[in-house]
């Protein structure tokens, strides 16, 4: 038994050659990393993918594969695509808030005399911002 085998070769129960494609990225002290990737992608697919990349990019590739594999194991239906959807929704929401806030700024700049004390209650109030933005339509 070779105590210097990488996590991949240990899991696959094979000899770990000196030029093993997996060993720089799957050290023996983190067996779960290879197990996750193997479960989602398969060892041969990962080997092919890494081999097709220049060596200075393989660490990032292994890291991103591991991250995606973790997402997929946690959410077998959507994987990391669920997070992408969520981020896209967040962008949409913040863009909408930003547009409303900028409309409110423009309104206040053009109508300083119209600001009364009760308007202070409407900061961040969507219906007020909608009204303000509609005055520019």
């Amino acid at each position, binding site marked *: 038994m070779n105590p210097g085998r990488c996590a991949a070769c240990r899991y696959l129960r094979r000899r770990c050659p000196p030029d093993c494609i997996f060993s720089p990225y799957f050290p023996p002290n983190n067996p779960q990393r290879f197990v996750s990737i193997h479960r989602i992608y398969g060892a041969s697919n990962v080997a092919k993918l890494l081999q097709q990349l220049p060596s200075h990019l393989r660490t*990032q590739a292994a890291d991103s594969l591991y991250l995606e594999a973790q997402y997929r194991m946690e959410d077998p239906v959507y994987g990391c695509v669920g997070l992408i959807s969520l*981020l896209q929704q967040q962008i949409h929401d913040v863009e909408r808030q930003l547009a409303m806030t900028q409309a409110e700024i423009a309104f206040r700049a053009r109508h300083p005399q119209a600001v009364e004390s009760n308007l202070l209650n409407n*900061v961040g109030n969507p219906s007020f911002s909608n009204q303000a933005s509609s005055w520019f339509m």
Partner: protein
Amino acid sequence: MGGNSPCASCKLLRRRCAKDCIFAPYFPSDDPHKFAIVHKVFGASNVSKTLQELPLQQRADAVSSLVYEANARIRDPVYGCVGAISYLQNQVSQLQMQLAVAQAEIVCIQMQQDPIMVAANPQMVLGQADDDDQAFLLQNQCFNFANNNASSSAYVNIHESLKRESIFGDKVS
């Protein structure tokens, strides 16, 4: 599906397409590319295992997300979907910062237009704030804003659901 019309998966794998073929509902024969990319990235047996472990009504969505991920990985073999996530997280951060600046500007406009009212009722501007210290903080924030420093988020009423921890740490630049 089945019979004399094999699905795209069985065509690619060169096998008989059984009546209960797990791939057939999701990989029709008229779109061979779809299965080809999923097979290239994940492997047919892994996809089959994934689908078998899911209830029927979730399999279509699972296939769609696998196709999306596989496409992303083929387009970007180094980062795959993770590259898109990183990009979107940056966008969210930038937009949140722009929103913070815009909200600070409103606060300062209000301070200029009715400082007495605002100082007496900081919670009206800060939303959730109910602490006397917020009045002092509000004045400081406007001072900072006037000096082009909008990095403080104490006066920003951004919903907690927008805050997300980074998924990379220091791993991906």
